[in-house]
C-alpha cells in the first residue's frame, strides 16, 4: 500500500509554505475483495486496490476541502491547491477555530484487525460464499438467488498543522445473502446481513441455515388483517437500524448546535424508561467503528448518552465540540460496511458504536412472558422519522404471540408508533445483543443492541 504518512507530510509541508493558517490531511489505502453468488452459483468476483486523500485548509476562518484518488503524490498536492482555491473563494465560517490538537491516545481496542482478510483472495471468499449456498440449499427447493461477501483491509493516516499525526489499520467484512423458496404460487425470502471486522470465526454454515429458516417462515406467513395494539418485541438487528436513524440523529452535536435535534434542550431530563441505558462506545472490542482514534485523530472515549432513562450528554466532532465547549472524539468519515470513498468527505459528527447494554432475558423467555404480543423479525426498511420519532414500517416477517407462544407468522402489515415515546415504554430488554447496520453501507455509525419489548405500538393490516 502507499506510504500515507509521507503523503500527509508533503501536503502539510506545502500548505505551510503556501501560508495557510491551518491544514488537515487524511489519506487512506485499501484492498477490497468481493465474491458474488447468483442463482446459487459463483458469478462475479472483484479485486480492487485504491488510495485516496482529503485535505481541509483554513485561511483564517475561510475553509476549503478537496479530495482526490491517489495514483501519484502530485494528486495530493493538486487536491491541496484545489482546497486553497476554495478557501479563498469561501465566506468566513465564524465558528471555525482550529483542527484538533495533539492528545495522548490512551485507549486500545481489540478485534478490529483480522490478518486472514489481507491474505484471502476473492477466490477464498467465493469458497466461503458457496458454504452458505450449500447450507441453505440443503433444504428442499431452497435457492440462493443472490449473495455477496466483501472483505477489506485498510490503513488511514491523519495529520494536521498542530502537529497531530495518527493512524489506524483495520479490516471490514460485509455479507448479504438472500434465499428463496417457492411453493404453490407463493414465495418466501430469507435475508441475512453480517457486518464484522473478522473473517475468522464467521459461521458460514449457520448463515445458510438462518436464511433458509427465514424463507420458510415467510412463505408460511399470512397477510395480517385488522389492527392490533399489543406489546411488540423488535428483533435486535432491526431495532439497531431504527436507533441509528433516530437516536443517533438526536444525540449528534451537529444537530443539537443547529437546533435540528428534538433533544437539543433535554440534557438531564428523565425521558425514557428506568431500565434504558445507551452508550457510545468507540472502543467496543470488534466494533465496526472501533479504533483508538476517531477520523480526526482525536482519542476515542466511551460516553454515556442515556443512563437509567435520563439523557446525559451528546456526541461531538471537533468543530461542533468547539462551538458547544465540549469534548470531541466523534468525527467520522469511515463507513461501517466499506472504507471506500471515506476520503471524499470531511469528517462529520456521528456516533461510533451506539450500544444498549443487554438485559437478562433470552428471546424465548421474553416471548413466553407475553400473553398477547407481536415479534417483528424483519422490516422492509427500519427507518424512523428523526425529528418526531414517528414510524410506519412495512413488516416483512413477524409473529403473533398468544399465551407465551408464537401462534402464526404474518406479513403485509405496518407497525406504527413513535420510537422516542416507545423508549419510555420499554417492557423488557433481551440478552441477545447484535449489530444493526446503517441505512447505507457506506455511512458511519453502527448500533449494537438486544431485542427489546415495547408498549404502545400498533400493527395495521390490509383490511
Amino acid at each position, binding site marked *: 500500500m502507499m506510504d500515507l504518512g509521507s503523503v500527509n507530510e508533503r501536503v502539510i509541508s506545502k500548505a505551510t509554505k503556501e501560508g495557510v493558517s491551518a491544514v488537515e490531511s487524511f489519506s487512506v489505502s485499501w484492498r477490497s475483495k468481493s465474491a458474488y453468488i447468483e442463482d446459487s452459483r459463483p458469478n462475479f*468476483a472483484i479485486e480492487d486496490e485504491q488510495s485516496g486523500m482529503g485535505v481541509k485548509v483554513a485561511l483564517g476562518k475561510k475553509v476549503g476541502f*478537496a479530495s482526490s*484518488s491517489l495514483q501519484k503524490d502530485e494528486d495530493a498536492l493538486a487536491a491541496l491547491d484545489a482546497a486553497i482555491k476554495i478557501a479563498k473563494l469561501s465566506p468566513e465560517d465564524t465558528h471555525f477555530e482550529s483542527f484538533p490538537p495533539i492528545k495522548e491516545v490512551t485507549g486500545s481496542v481489540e478485534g478490529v484487525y483480522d490478518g486472514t482478510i489481507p491474505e484471502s483472495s476473492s477466490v477464498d471468499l467465493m469458497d466461503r460464499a458457496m458454504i452458505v449456498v450449500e447450507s441453505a440449499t440443503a433444504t428442499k427447493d431452497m*435457492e440462493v438467488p443472490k449473495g455477496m461477501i466483501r472483505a477489506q483491509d485498510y490503513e488511514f493516516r491523519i495529520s494536521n498543522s498542530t502537529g497531530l499525526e495518527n493512524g489506524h489499520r483495520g479490516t471490514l467484512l460485509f455479507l448479504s445473502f438472500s434465499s428463496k423458496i417457492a411453493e404453490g404460487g407463493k414465495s418466501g425470502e430469507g435475508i441475512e446481513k453480517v457486518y464484522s471486522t473478522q473473517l475468522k470465526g464467521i459461521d458460514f454454515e449457520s448463515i445458510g441455515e438462518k436464511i433458509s429458516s427465514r424463507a420458510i417462515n415467510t412463505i408460511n406467513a399470512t397477510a395480517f388483517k385488522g389492527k392490533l395494539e399489543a406489546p411488540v418485541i423488535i428483533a435486535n438487528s432491526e431495532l439497531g437500524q431504527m436507533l441509528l436513524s433516530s437516536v443517533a440523529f438526536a444525540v449528534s452535536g451537529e444537530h443539537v448546535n443547529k437546533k435540528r435535534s428534538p433533544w437539543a434542550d433535554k440534557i438531564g431530563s428523565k425521558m425514557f424508561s428506568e431500565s434504558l441505558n445507551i452508550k457510545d462506545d468507540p472502543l467496543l472490542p470488534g466494533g465496526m467503528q472501533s479504533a483508538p482514534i476517531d477520523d480526526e485523530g482525536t482519542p476515542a472515549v466511551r460516553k454515556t448518552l442515556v443512563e437509567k432513562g435520563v439523557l446525559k450528554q451528546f456526541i461531538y466532532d471537533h468543530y461542533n465540540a468547539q462551538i458547544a465547549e465540549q469534548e470531541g472524539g466523534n468525527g467520522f468519515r469511515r463507513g461501517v460496511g466499506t472504507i471506500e470513498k471515506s476520503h471524499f468527505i470531511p469528517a462529520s459528527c456521528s456516533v461510533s458504536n451506539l450500544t444498549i447494554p443487554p438485559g437478562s432475558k433470552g428471546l424465548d423467555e421474553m416471548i413466553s412472558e407475553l400473553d398477547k404480543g407481536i415479534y417483528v423479525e424483519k422490516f422492509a*426498511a427500519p427507518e424512523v422519522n428523526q425529528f418526531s420519532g414517528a414510524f410506519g414500517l412495512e413488516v*416483512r416477517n413477524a409473529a403473533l404471540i398468544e399465551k407465551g407462544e408464537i401462534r402464526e407468522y404474518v406479513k*403485509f402489515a*405496518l407497525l406504527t408508533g413513535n420510537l422516542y415515546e416507545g423508549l419510555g415504554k420499554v417492557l423488557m430488554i433481551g440478552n441477545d445483543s447484535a449489530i444493526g447496520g446503517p441505512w447505507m453501507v457506506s455511512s458511519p455509525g453502527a448500533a449494537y443492541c438486544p431485542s427489546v419489548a415495547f408498549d404502545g405500538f400498533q400493527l395495521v393490516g390490509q383490511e
Partner: protein
Amino acid sequence: MMERLSKSVEKTLEMGAHFADARFEDRKISTIFVVNDELRDYQNMSMKGVGIRALVGGSWGLSSTSRLDTDSLLEAAERAVRIAKHNAGKVEKKVSLDSAKSMKKSLAARVKKNPLDVDSESKLSFVMDLTKAQKVDDRVVNTNSRYGEKIYNFLLVNSFGSELEWEEIRTFAFAHSVAAEGDKREFSYDVKDGTKGFELIEEIDPNAMGEKVGNESIELLGAKRPPNGMMTVVADPDISGLLAHEVMGHASEADEVVKKRSFLTPMVGKRVATDLISMVDDGTYPGANGMIPFDSEGTPSAHTSIIEKGVFRGYMHSLETAAEMGVEPTGNGRAEDFSRRVWVRMTNTYFKKGSDSLDEMIEETKEGVLTSKAMRGMEDPVGGGFEAVALKGYLIKNGEVTDPIPSFTLTGSALDILNTVDLVSKEFELSGGTCGKGDEDWVNVSSGGPFIRAKIVVGGA
C-alpha cells in the same frame, strides 16, 4: 488512455478471456452546503480509476485500480482473468455475448452552460439566497441549502472493438427547512436535479423555492395524526414514481428475472394493472437525472416499454441477461463506479400520463388521502410488496383537500394496488436522485409520472 485500455483488453484475450472490457472513469463532484446562513462546507472531489472485466465461460472477474500507468493496468487485466478462470469451473451456464455490436463514438454532454465555466461566486450566491428565503418565520429554526455539480467522463474499450468516449453532467439544488414549536419538530424539503448544466440552477427562483420549503415545514407543525388502514389514495408523482421504481421497476430488472428472484418472472403478456397504467424505463429522456448516453457496458440507452395498458411487456437488460434471454440489450447495465460490478439498473422510470386533471381526481374522491413528496421507498422484487414513506399529505373529504397530515407510510401488494388504479392525471413530473440495489451500488436515476388514484394501506403515528 484509450490505448492503455486497448492493451489491457488485448491482454485479457491473450490470457483466455472470452469477452473483456476496460472502463476509465474521471468523476469530479463539487458541492456547496450552507446551514443557517453560514457556509458549512465547500468541497471538490476527484475520483479516477479503471475497472477491467473479463468473462471466462459464465464467470466474471473484475479488477480495478486507481493507478493508471500501463503496468498497473496490465496487472489488473491479468488479475481479472485469473479471478474469472478460477471460478469458471464452478459455473454451469456459459455466457456468450457474441451478438453485442461494435461502436466507435465520442459524445459530449448536451448542456447549455457547463458548470466549470461558471464562477464560484454565482454558485455561492444562489445557495445563500436559497437559505435566506427559507427563514419565513421564527419557527423555522434550521435552514439547509446545497448546490452540487457532477461532471463525469468515461472511456470504454471492449473486446468487440468498441471505443467509446462520453461525458455526463448533472447539477442539483436542495433546500431543507426544520420548523419547531414547543417540543414538536417537522421538516420539509425540495430538490431539483437533472442532466443539465448551470442552466438548471438559473431556471430556479431561489426565493420562491426557499419560501415554499420554509412554509411547508411550518404547515406540518399543525398537522393531524395520519389515518391508519386501507384508504383511497391520490398518490402524487413522487409516490407513484416509487411504486413504478421500487416494485415494478426493480422486479423488471432482468438479472432478478433470470435467477427467478422476481415476482414478475412469469408475467410477460399478462395483465398486472388496470388498462390506465403504462410504464417505461427511458434512459434517453432529455434532461432527466437518469439520462445516460451509454450504460457502463457501452450499450446505448433506450426507451423500454415495461407495462402497456395494464399488460406486462418485458424487462430491462444488460449484455449478459440479454444474451441469456435471447433479446437485445436495453442499455441498463450500470455500475456505481469503476470498482463496482455491473447490475441491471433503471434509468428514468415512470408511469405514462393519463387524461384526468388533479382537480377532477380530488373532486371525485369522497374520502381519502393526497400524498405530497416522498421520503423513501424500498424494493421488494421477490414478494412484490410496496413500501413508501410520504413526507406529508392531506386528508380529502367530500371532494376537497382539507387538513395536512405528517409523514406516513403506504404499503401493500403492488399488483393489488395497480389493479385498483381508476384515475391517472395529465399532470406529470419526474424527480431525480440515486438508487441502490440491495444495500449499495448507487446510480443516478429519476422516477415519477402522473398522480394516480388507487386503494392503498396507509399508516403513521
